[in-house]
């Protein structure tokens, strides 16, 4: 799904210099100008708080089974058990509590996948861009191959090889999201490498590692940050899709996609077990995408101007 979610495709977004100290104030100013972005940030903050405080705010433990309350509808929709605000699932677990704990998994998945894909992608991209030659050719061909297959299909096959489960799903998704970071980093490095300040630093006698990490990298962070936000929401969606296909987190993990897959047989009988996990996914992804849009606008002077 990665391909679909990047409105610029895999073409490197034309993004300007990253704001340093003075720029940071300006950056916040522009970010704050977008009401959507702020709203997204607030919702995201709330989600983080919910995830951290899950054991305190969830009414019940996520796996506690109330054998006398199977598939009870929410109290405001005809249910007779007011303690289960969003109803219960087929083995009598409180859906609200499961959703609250599920926030932990989704945010965890997003964070881990982005960190892995970002670190891996930057490293490979830096090497490709800086070393060049046949190393670059091989790396870029490899990335082409990964991009030539639909990401979800690739992730599905990878996770089948690694075995179904949350960790393996995260690894698989990180692998399929990686090529975007590699391409962006490489493109940025190649542009930056020719610039005067790099040449100057090299003449002073800086080693290649220092050159790559301290001189060049900070100057190509902007597109990477935007891509990272996009990847965060893609990771959540892809993990949920894998869970939905039965290859992601395994029950009884209250991961939203897995909950949805488990609930699928009840679409005619118990709408609440189907509706709420999907809604939770949508809200989370929406919040992150709002932040992503805000970031891009704030980091991209060209869009800002227009």
């Amino acid at each position, binding site marked *: 799904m990665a391909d679909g979610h990047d409105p610029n495709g895999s073409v490197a977004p034309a993004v300007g210099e990253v704001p340093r100290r003075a720029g940071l104030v300006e950056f916040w100013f522009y970010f704050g100008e977008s009401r959507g972005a702020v709203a997204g940030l607030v919702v995201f903050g709330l989600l983080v708080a919910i995830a951290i405080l899950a054991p305190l705010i969830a009414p019940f433990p996520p796996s506690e089974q109330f054998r006398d309350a199977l598939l009870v509808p929410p109290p405001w929709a005809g249910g007779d058990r007011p303690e289960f605000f969003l109803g219960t699932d087929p083995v009598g677990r409180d859906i609200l509590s499961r959703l609250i704990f599920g926030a932990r998994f989704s945010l965890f998945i997003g964070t881990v996948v982005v960190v892995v894909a970002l670190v891996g992608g930057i490293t490979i991209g830096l090497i490709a861009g800086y070393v060049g030659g046949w190393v670059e050719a091989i790396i870029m061909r490899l990335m082409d191959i990964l991009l030539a297959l639909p990401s979800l299909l690739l992730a599905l096959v990878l996770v089948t090889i690694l075995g179904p489960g949350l960790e393996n799903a995260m690894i698989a998704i990180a692998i399929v999201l990686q090529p975007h970071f590699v391409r962006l980093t490489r493109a940025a490095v190649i542009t930056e490498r020719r610039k005067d300040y790099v040449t100057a630093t090299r003449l002073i006698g800086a080693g290649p590692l220092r050159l790559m990490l301290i001189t060049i990298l900070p100057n190509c962070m902007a597109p990477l940050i935007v891509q990272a936000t996009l990847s965060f929401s893609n990771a959540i969606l892809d993990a949920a899709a894998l869970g939905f296909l039965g290859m992601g987190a395994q029950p009884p993990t209250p991961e939203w996609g897995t909950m949805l897959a488990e609930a699928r047989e009840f679409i005619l009988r118990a709408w609440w077990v189907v509706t709420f996990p999907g809604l939770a996914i949508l809200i989370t992804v929406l919040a992150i995408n709002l932040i992503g849009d805000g970031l891009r606008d704030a980091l991209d002077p060209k869009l800002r101007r*227009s």
Partner: protein
Amino acid sequence: MVRLILARLAVLIPTFVGVTIIAFAFIRLLPGDPIQLLSGERVMSPERHAEVMHDLGYDRPLIVQYGSYLGGLVTGDFGSSVVTKRPVLQDFLTLFPATLELSLAAMLIAVTIGIPAGVLAAVKRGSILDQAVMSVALIGYSMPIFWWGLLLIIFFSGYLGWTPVSGRISLVYFFPPVTGFMLIDSLLSGEKGAFASAVSHLILPAIVLGTIPLAVIARQTRSAMLEVLGEDYVRTARAKGLPPLLVVGVHALRNAMVPVVTTIGLQAGYLLAGAILTETIFSWPGIGKWMVDSVFKRDYPVIQGGLVLIAITIMMVNLLVDVLYGLINPRIRHG
């Protein structure tokens, strides 16, 4: 032009070989085996199992297996399914039109709604309309489509009863697949009501699959339009007093289309990924569902052949986009 295409094709060859290696390697790494799956709870004797593995050639050295696989590919032989024993290529060609039809319909919805919506939002920048369009687009673009599909089924098929639940056409109609496109075949068949039936079956899955491309296209069109509207020549055109419709419709839109076309092309990969989920939900007999089923059945030759065929398809679409891009953007052609 021809040189451009040939050059691009040359670049594709190593990628293609890479894909075959990866597809081949993946399959050898998959745990479980299809023969075991075929016997289900019933236990197959180890001798018979070994015999079948031998018949299928899975006991040969990997390099020999790869060699014979590659040799087969060159002659158009993608192997046969372990389960159905039918040739992989035959099944791909039978099922691909279904996916293609669904994807084209999804893209049609995405383009016909997405581009006007994006243009409108750009022209009325900052208005309530703009905000509404962009909000809806953002929601569409954040949508877990498997959930979206379920909701639409519950509402339109279950609650309202407007659309059929699954399949490509009512089973009352039966005619030979001439083109494989149900819409065309239903017209060719001359049977009354067949075309309407095919359309009603196509509409929900196409909406579900088209949702994300629609959102992406609307957003891309808006930002491309905004950029173009700020350019000097548009301002000049406006200043000259040309009618706004002409300025927007002809001058601005034409130039804004360049990145939009690229975006549309880049959706090809997404459409195939989305088809995996959409086809699963709507029991649509296409290659997405076929691949998922094969992964679950560990049908090695199908997964292997399917991956390669899908990669070829996507590479061809990308090539086409490159060529189109060159056509509408003369700067690329010269450069």
